């Protein structure tokens, strides 16, 4: 379980958990679960397109994730963010369906892209993931205060001269970065559970933003490590474990905070 090809899986899993746990706190603060679900789904089209022209699916993800994130931000900047998200996601997926119909991809490979594959990570992809994750963490550190303030009150932020529209776009790019890192391992359909479940559970327990990030990372790490191990042992898809364990954390945290009241 810890040798050979699995080394990459553990390494990438760890990277993904850290970065998703940190960024997820802002996802939950900003009520951005739909966007975080939509961007990875949209990036699926990129992966399908990449396999069509014979390049690594990570390249496709890296192109389509920011395109999806920025179109959601741009078209939804005045109002109806949810409607625009639904439409952008659907359109990108339609493109994905088209690319699939052109290619001779096996169902198993498409399945892996949608629901995750711990064994599919090459060395090159590992280094790319590490680089992207580093960039995402650096971006969070740099944007930390404006990101937090705009999440609390756009008006108070505007009075301090923050352009919340700009911060929002930067946040979407951040989501795209995490997407590119995480989708090859966790899959396009279930990546968002890592960015919603652990932070939602963490915030029920911890009161400060930094503390919530730390606990959220810890929960994400446990979730992903357990999922990788279980997926390796049972041979069942990792997405199954990530999705159900993520939901279980939220239920447990809700029960915990209900008991304390």
């Amino acid at each position: 379980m810890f040798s050979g090809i699995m080394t990459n899986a553990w390494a990438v899993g760890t990277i993904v958990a850290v970065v998703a746990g940190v960024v997820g706190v802002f996802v939950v603060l900003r009520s951005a679960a739909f966007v975080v679900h939509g961007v990875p789904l949209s990036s699926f089209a990129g992966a399908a397109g990449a396999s069509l022209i014979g390049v690594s699916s990570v390249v496709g993800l890296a192109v389509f994730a920011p395109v999806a994130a920025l179109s959601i931000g741009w078209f939804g900047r005045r109002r109806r963010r949810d409607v625009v998200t639904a439409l952008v996601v659907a359109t990108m997926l339609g493109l994905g369906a088209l690319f699939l119909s052109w290619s001779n991809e096996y169902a198993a490979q498409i399945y892996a892209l949608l629901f995750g594959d711990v064994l599919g990570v090459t060395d090159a992809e590992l280094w790319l993931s590490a680089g992207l994750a580093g960039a995402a963490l650096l971006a969070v550190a740099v944007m930390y205060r404006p990101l937090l303030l705009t999440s609390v009150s756009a008006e108070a932020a505007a009075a301090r001269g923050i352009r919340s529209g700009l911060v929002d776009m930067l946040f979407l790019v951040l989501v795209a970065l995490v997407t590119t890192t995480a989708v090859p391992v966790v899959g396009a359909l279930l990546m968002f559970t890592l960015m919603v479940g652990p932070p939602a559970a963490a915030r029920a327990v911890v009161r400060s933003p930094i503390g919530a990030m730390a606990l959220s990372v810890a929960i994400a790490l446990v979730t992903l490590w357990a999922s990788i191990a279980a997926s390796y042992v049972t041979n069942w898809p990792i997405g199954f474990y990530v999705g159900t364990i993520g939901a279980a954390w939220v239920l447990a945290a809700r029960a915990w905070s209900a008991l304390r009241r």
Partner: protein
Amino acid sequence: MTGFFQSDPVRVALAAGAVTAVVSGVVGVFVVIRGQSFAGHALGDLGTLGGSGAFLANVNPLWGFVGVGAVVAGAMELFGVQRRRGRDVATGVVLGAALGLSALLLYFDTTTSTTTGATITVLFGSLFAASPQAVPEMAGLGAAGVLGVVVVFRPLLLSSVSPDLASARGVPVRAVALGFLVLVGVTVSLTSMVVGTILSPALLIGPAATALRLTRRPGAAMAGAAVIGLIATWAGIVLSYASDHWPPAHRGWPISFFVVAIVFVTYLGVELVARRAR
């Protein structure tokens, strides 16, 4: 194009597509007014669970979509989708758990059967493969959906505008909300048959959002959304049929691609014109 209307799969597709477009338009207007696009999208995704389960049990996927759609709609309502605060986390958590389960069922589908198509069929739809028997079933469900909206129209509209006002007038707001979500679940299961589970929200939300840009009257918006959806679906079927010999693969391009592309372009066009007009 010769033989287009003689082909049985095409006729089935046109009929099933028409039913779907009309119901989606009618229900979709309320989804947009109520700001429940994420719930609509999630119910579509969750149809995957029903579709993959039906594949595994070897029953008509339509009933898998419908069953799961209705059950999950209820679960989401209980989890707190009706509150504006925190509802997207609630939706996300239910969605995550159910998608995880779908992953498992699809995995069993791909490992237990020799046909590799379950994932693709369930997720992206294959209208040309719909059986002729499915049409009366879909039409029945569709009629029930439209009838449902007609019956709850006024209380639903009132409670969408202001839940407080509605409950002051004696509308059972939570029951109406639950009933409506179940309706969305049924509608999305119909659209899942046409364009697949992960694309079904496009047909639910796109035409409705477009129509609501053009008129503020809910009744007119419903009619408009139905027409836009109908045009997109039928044009999608025709184009998909016509694309049989198109490059690069010389196989038909998927219907879902055309439908979604037409819906999106229409929305963008109307949005741009509406902005210019102001």
